[in-house]
């Protein structure tokens, strides 16, 4: 056996050096990425994939087509004729056995008033003796079991659910009309007024953000311009609640605000009120607790920006005759804007997703989007709607946050 040694391909010197350089660069990049690989894989698996599944769940709509495949196929080419009724009964007999009936009934109720009952009524009479009958007789029996089958609403809903993916839940979450009456008209009955819930979420978040900025700005100013021991104490007072458990802080508001709590006790002994005021489970309690919880998040970015504003700027303005307030508002405050904006943005975005505090100290009229996501997941098992609401929440927060964060980063001149 002869060993042939191939001569090294004649490569021009420059080309070889270029290739070496490229190899070295790739090696350097790999070396940098390597330690981060475990986290990237972890995030891809447990953050990116679950969020993708939320998107899929929001647009997935397969209960109807899964339970009524033959009926759906028939409806695609013709209307709700005698044949459709016979196929419906056929499909329902199979659905009863395969466990698809309950999901179907639930999904039909989302789309039609009385949809669940309509499905269950037919399922009850569906059996071998019914299929043996003439199509016309089947039709009569089905309509006798539930008169809704004689109208267009239920059939339209089945036809609309003929695809595995639809915008049904997203439309529902956006507050568009999705529910029909048996006669096929959109119903005026609203089970959840989502636009009102979004508006409430935004109103509460804006109110909390505005209050934290109004309270936080002077606080940040005083903290950032104090030095030495006083400065340390002040920053400690800001950080202390920041590091205390969110749940503990919410609990302390319940203790303070409840009917026989500290606040009512104080108000009554001071003679301001004669009987305990309902403070807990109100909008007031929600906003107050949220402001207290968010205040450190608003103040800390402000402090970090204010600390590096040179005092000489204000001094210069003063020496040129500006009044203290004029110097503050025309020289100091404009330079603090990136910090104010960052603190406000962070607070606003976090407020949009608040769940715990409103759930514990707010009334039924103070619950925000997050509360309904939790409710549809845990109590009503309507994952499609919960996912659609999640998409609206994340989408809304991103739409608001992106341009603002760009504004902050372009106006912060590298201070962050």
């Amino acid at each position, binding site marked *: 056996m002869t060993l042939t040694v191939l001569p090294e391909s004649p490569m021009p010197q420059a080309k070889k050096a270029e290739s070496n350089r490229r190899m070295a660069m790739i090696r*350097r*990049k790999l*070396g*940098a*990425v*390597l*330690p*981060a*690989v*475990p*986290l*990237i894989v*972890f*995030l891809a698996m*447990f*953050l990116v*994939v*679950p969020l993708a*599944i939320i998107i899929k769940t929001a647009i997935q709509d397969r209960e109807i087509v899964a339970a009524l495949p033959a009926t759906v196929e028939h409806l695609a080419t013709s209307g709700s004729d005698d044949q459709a009724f016979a196929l419906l009964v056929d499909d329902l007999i199979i659905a009863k056995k395969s466990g698809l009936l309950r999901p179907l009934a639930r999904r039909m109720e989302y789309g039609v008033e009385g949809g669940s009952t309509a499905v269950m009524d037919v399922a009850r009479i569906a059996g071998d003796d019914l299929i043996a009958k003439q199509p016309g007789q089947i039709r009569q029996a089905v309509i006798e079991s539930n008169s809704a089958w004689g109208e267009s609403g239920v059939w339209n809903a089945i036809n609309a659910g003929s695809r595995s993916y639809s915008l049904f839940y997203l439309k529902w979450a956006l507050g568009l009309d999705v529910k029909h009456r048996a006669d096929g008209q959109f119903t005026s009955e609203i089970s959840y007024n989502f636009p009102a819930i979004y508006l409430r979420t935004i109103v509460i978040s804006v109110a909390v953000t505005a209050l934290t900025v109004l*309270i*936080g700005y002077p606080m940040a100013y005083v903290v950032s*311009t104090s030095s030495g021991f006083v400065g340390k104490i*002040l920053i400690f*007072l*800001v950080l*202390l*609640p920041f*590091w*205390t*458990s*969110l*749940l*503990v802080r919410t*609990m*302390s508001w*319940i*203790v303070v605000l*409840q009917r*026989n*709590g*500290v606040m009512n*006790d104080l108000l009554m002994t001071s003679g301001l009120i004669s009987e305990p005021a309902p403070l807990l489970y109100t909008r007031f309690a929600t906003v107050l607790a949220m402001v*207290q919880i968010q*205040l450190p998040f608003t103040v800390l970015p402000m402090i970090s920006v204010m600390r590096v504003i040179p005092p000489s700027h*204000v001094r210069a303005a*003063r020496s040129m005759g500006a009044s*203290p307030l004029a110097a503050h508002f025309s020289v100091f405050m404009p330079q603090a804007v990136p910090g104010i904006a960052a603190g406000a943005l962070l607070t606003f975005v976090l407020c949009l*997703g608040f*769940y*715990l505090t409103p759930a*514990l100290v707010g009334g039924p009229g103070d619950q925000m989007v*997050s*509360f309904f*996501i*939790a409710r549809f997941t*845990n109590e009503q098992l309507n*994952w499609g709607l919960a*996912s659609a609401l999640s998409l609206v929440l*994340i989408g809304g*927060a991103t739409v608001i946050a992106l341009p603002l964060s760009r504004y902050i980063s372009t106006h912060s001149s590298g201070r962050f």
Partner: protein
Amino acid sequence: MSTRRYADLPLSIRFPLYLFVGISLALLILPLAAALPISFNSAPWFTYPFPDLSLRWFKALFGSEIWIGALLNSVGIALATTFLATTLGTLASIGLVNSNFPLRRFVMALAISPMLMPVVVLGLALFIFYSSLGLNYTFMGVVIAHTLMATPFVVITVTATLTRFDFTLMRAAANLGAGKVAAFKDIMLPLIAPGVGAGAVFAFATSFDEVVIVLFIAGPGQRTLPKQMFTGLREQLDPTIIAAAVTMVLITSLLMLVALAVARKR
């Protein structure tokens, strides 16, 4: 009169300003200062003054199997979370401070994003994902979820520490014949240990504190202290819950103090 400080506001502005800031700071601290001592009240009332001081609510807390079980669950989950989050986060930070890292800003944003994501959305996403993996109502499932929430804190603190780390030391170690792992273990880790320690404390506190995700994905076997508190707060507030809150605060602040002491020693 000596030097005149132009930056100073006149007293007529400073006085109301300080008053306002004082009241605001009181708003931050007072609810805690008012609520937590009630755990020492001998009576089940939520007002002052107390008829007598007593430890009866702490006795009730530590005498209850449910509360003790919840506390132990919380500690176990938090320890596992701390280990996972600190390992993943520290390693990732070492990569992320390297200027050769491609798409550095994007990966950083991804690593931080669980902090800004509404917790309920994260809970729902994990709940649906877990239901196909069989991870719902398991210890591992809760630890993974908590790690997801805790890693950003580790990444932020360790990255901040690493930006002050002198990377020529690593090259010096390599020159002296140390392998990459040895250089990391003997040179880098001891120097960035305060940052890693602080990150670990944040990770522990994040997990120890977390309740919303647990409500979604944890079963009765993973009843944590916050979950038990949440249930109690929704049903009937009793001073045992405040005693539990005091215990929570004590454990986390002890950890913070340890972290501070370690950081100072260095």
